């Protein structure tokens, strides 16, 4: 048995009720092909780096799985043909990477629901040229459900200094 994780993007039009249905139906689909679901982590609604199916936003869900190598291939066709799932990525992980303390799905949906309205607002403020300081503060509020916050920014300033010089000019 190996450990895997699948990160998939759900269509942004789906609200909390439908969102839960989609997550539960994918979980039951995993169980149907002898895949054990270890944890589900809802990242919330995020802006995509590029458009997928003409959608600018998507709800990210990370699922950690325990399965044999043969069974894990079966989920790719299922996820591929699901119209509510925009994209997915399955990768192999080690046993130490498994999340042990995960909140229940309802708690996670409620948490992401309260943070959802912030995302569109922050985007509007970034488009306004009259507020140069707005984007900096928005970055922290934009993705509150981020699993790991960056701590060592100062240590890597040397690396980004070349890029920053270019942008300041």
């Amino acid at each position, binding site marked *: 048995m190996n450990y895997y994780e699948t990160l998939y993007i759900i269509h942004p039009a789906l609200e909390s009720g439908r969102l839960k249905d989609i997550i539960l139906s994918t979980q039951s689909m995993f169980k149907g092909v002898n895949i054990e679901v270890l944890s589900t982590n809802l990242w919330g609604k995020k802006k*995509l780096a590029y458009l997928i199916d003409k959608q600018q936003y998507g709800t990210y869900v990370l699922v950690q799985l325990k399965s044999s190598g043969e069974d894990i291939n079966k989920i790719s066709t299922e996820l591929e043909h699901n119209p509510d799932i925009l994209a997915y*990525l399955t990768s192999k992980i080690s046993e130490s990477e498994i999340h042990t303390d995960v909140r229940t799905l309802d708690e996670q949906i409620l948490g992401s629901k309260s943070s959802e309205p912030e995302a569109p607002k922050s985007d509007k403020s970034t488009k306004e040229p009259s507020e140069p300081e707005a984007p900096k503060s928005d970055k922290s509020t934009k993705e509150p459900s981020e699993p*790991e916050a960056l701590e*060592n920014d100062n*240590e890597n300033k040397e690396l980004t200094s070349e890029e920053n010089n270019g*942008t300041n000019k």
Partner: protein
Amino acid sequence: MALTNNRKICPFKEDPKLISKINYKDYKFLRKFITEQGKIIPGFVTGVSSKYQRRLTKEIKKARNIALLPYVNDPRNA
């Protein structure tokens, strides 16, 4: 003839805690290693050793696949 030592030190060898951050889920950290356009910055510019540059490249490409990082980005539209 003594030449000045301009050789950069690999940030991952300097601080091994950063190695765990080489993961597609930590896409904000990976952003340090791509340009504004979205291109991967070569190791000789950032000083990253070839061992970790190979890992970085793989993880950046995974993050691009799932739309966490852009394949291409036009800074003029930002």
